[in-house]
């Protein structure tokens, strides 16, 4: 359990202690994934439903894998969300979930706040797998997990986030999580893609990518999706690549051992240059692996309070139990 939480809706809601507790638990599960049989019975007997109202490949696979590695039963529900009125289908979905006795619901939805609606209406635990342009907490967690594993800490790091901040749920979750853990976050992107009063997140808004790169420990590059945004926001991908694309030349302003991240899928040659994507600083595939571990941790911790009578967590890795009991702000290295 994370605190006494039923749901994980966003990193804004979590305390630093809770974040650390999840990250510590994730490390334990990361080790499980390296075992010859990367599976534990922690969620045996529990059922998780993956509801994807919006197309997703890696997040859905990552959650499903995490659930299976924890021995949960899984059911998947996918819809384009275009045929039925969104509100109706969400309400009906909630009722169906209730009727099927599902314990954990993973939801991705095109509407910000859709997971909150489900959480209000369900006894099941709800995990936000990306809601509109609000948050994508498990992506934020896996990014921070990757940073912490790579750089040994989070506090005091300089993290640059580059791209369309306004429409990025990845950016919001990263900003909340990183600032709570003491990192310094600088953002850069087209002024048309900066949300109103963004500095109130406690971030610095750089005037250019170059400025944001200056001395950065970590550069997190957001996917640009001009085709999904209003056409008035930016002239073209070509212009975007020219002004905001992260190239090895621009990367030189960062620390020599800078960590380069991208939540995927990448537009190579647009927001990230080919040589940066495949370069020595890139941890992009590591992020994918870590994603499974982080999602296992979240599922495991949220399922904690689903345990009635016989705990479903009997065979949980011992370290997970310890760290979960006494969260530590310091990574154990």
């Amino acid at each position, binding site marked *: 359990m994370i605190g006494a939480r039923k749901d994980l809706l966003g990193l804004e809601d979590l305390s630093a202690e809770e974040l650390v507790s999840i990250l510590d638990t994730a490390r334990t599960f990361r080790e499980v994934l390296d075992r010859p049989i990367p599976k534990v019975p922690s969620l045996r007997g529990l059922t998780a439903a993956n509801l994807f109202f919006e197309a997703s490949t890696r997040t859905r696979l990552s959650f499903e894998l995490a659930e299976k590695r924890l021995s949960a039963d899984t059911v998947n529900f996918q819809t384009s969300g275009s045929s039925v009125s*969104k*509100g*109706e289908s969400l309400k009906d979905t909630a009722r169906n979930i209730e009727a099927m006795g599902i314990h954990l619901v993973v939801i991705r939805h095109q*509407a910000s706040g859709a997971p909150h609606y489900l959480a209000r209406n369900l006894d099941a635990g709800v995990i936000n797998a990306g809601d509109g342009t609000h948050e994508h907490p498990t992506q934020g967690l896996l990014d921070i997990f990757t940073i912490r594993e790579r750089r040994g800490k989070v506090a005091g790091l300089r993290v640059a986030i580059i791209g369309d901040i306004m429409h990025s749920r990845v950016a919001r979750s990263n900003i909340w999580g990183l600032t709570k853990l003491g990192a310094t976050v600088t953002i850069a992107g087209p002024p048309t893609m900066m949300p109103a009063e963004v500095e*109130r997140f406690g971030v610095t808004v750089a005037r250019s990518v170059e400025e944001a790169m200056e001395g950065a420990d970590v550069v997190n590059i957001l996917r640009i999706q001009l085709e999904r945004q209003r056409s008035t926001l930016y002239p073209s991908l070509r212009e975007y690549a020219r002004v905001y694309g992260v190239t090895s030349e621009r990367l030189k302003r960062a620390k020599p051992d800078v960590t380069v991240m991208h939540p995927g899928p990448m537009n190579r040659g647009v927001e990230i240059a080919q040589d940066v994507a495949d370069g020595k600083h890139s941890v992009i595939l590591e992020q994918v692996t870590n994603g499974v571990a982080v999602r296992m941790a979240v599922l495991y911790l949220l399922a904690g309070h689903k345990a009635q009578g016989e705990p479903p967590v009997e065979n949980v890795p011992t370290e997970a139990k310890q760290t979960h009991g006494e969260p530590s702000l310091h990574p154990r290295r």
Partner: protein
Amino acid sequence: MASPLCIRGGRVLDPARGIDRVQDLWIANGQIAGLGEDAPADVRSHPQVEVIPVQGAVICPGLVDIHVHLREPGQEERETIETGTRAAARGGFTTVACMPNTAPPLDDRPRIEYVVRRARESGHARVFPIAAVTRGQMGETLTEIEDLIDAGAVAVSDDGKPVRNAEIMRRALELTRRLGVPVIQHAEDPDLKGDGVMHEGWTSTRLGMRGIPDAAESVIVARDALLAELTNGHVHVAHVSAARSAEIIRRAKARGIRMTAETAPHYLLLTDEAVQGYDPRAKMNPPLRSARDRDALIEAVVDGTIDCLATDHAPHTEIEKDSDFDSAPFGIVGLETALGLYLKALVEPKHLSLSELILRLTVNPCKILGLPGGTFEPGSPADVTVFDPSRRWTVRASEFASMGRNTPFEGWELPGQVLLTMVGGRVTYRPDAVPASAR
């Protein structure tokens, strides 16, 4: 003469005539007979006077709301003229003007006549329809405005949508000028609004919601001020929500431009922070804005920049509103909470006196639309509202007469219990449980 009515012992407020004193209000034959000793002797000495004692309460001309959505014809699952006017009566309103964005819209004579007839048959308040500016409210072709006004419409508006085309707005102002009715503008630039769902600011940023900047409203208010100046027509700005709009209206008035304005209670009491938690009951258009806007609007009501107070009563079904924020429709109900909310927002903090509030809920809206009533002048229809400003009550949407339950004020404790509403001398609302006199 049928037996006259004497509403006794209350504080009579008739701002049109500068009256504020404890006095009897005499009613005979559905009309105001007079106040106290001024009422004709044959009325006062009638052998069968019905006395309604209301000690401690306020007696004022029936409240007038010039911005409601009654949803009939075509959206009777949300509200009907019957239920909507029952809600009006319960809220102390005796007169409402209803917007034409029904299904189909009120854009031709039979539809205006239908509303007038339905209101006569089933109404608990006087209903004055507002006709569409353009056919189908599509913003392209003007309606037959003179015919519609002749049929009973009191103004034109495409409310729900703006009159987007400046040329159409200009011509509508020119055509309404000679009729003496305003064009009521739902001021919103559709391009700037985009697919926004709430005020653009820190809260929308945090919640990851598409924002509607205040300029979406203010640019149209500014444009319309120029068009009103060009045509000498009368623009009435509906539901002002932004500080900048109020400032533009203030300057327009100072230049002698014929621009009037209204706002709604929620803009004076809530800010965009109410959207926190993605509660669809806090979703309306224009959206709840910042604390700065809220404070500026209160100031604009006080200095008269905003002439009158409306509700933008917009009922929706529970099915529509019970959803995620994005999918939910814009709009909240207002008729049954407005008086209490305005007392709370304006009178309790002493921004306005009680009399100044009543002025903005009676005389001023009547003036804007050229409606009868709004005063206790002898001979005027006996539209009367009696309420106890000190008696507090709790908002329970489940008790509403309106079919709409979509209010963000559920559970709020408000001043100003309505004790009696009367239209043309006929009681339209009188709560059974409330004793007729309050100390």
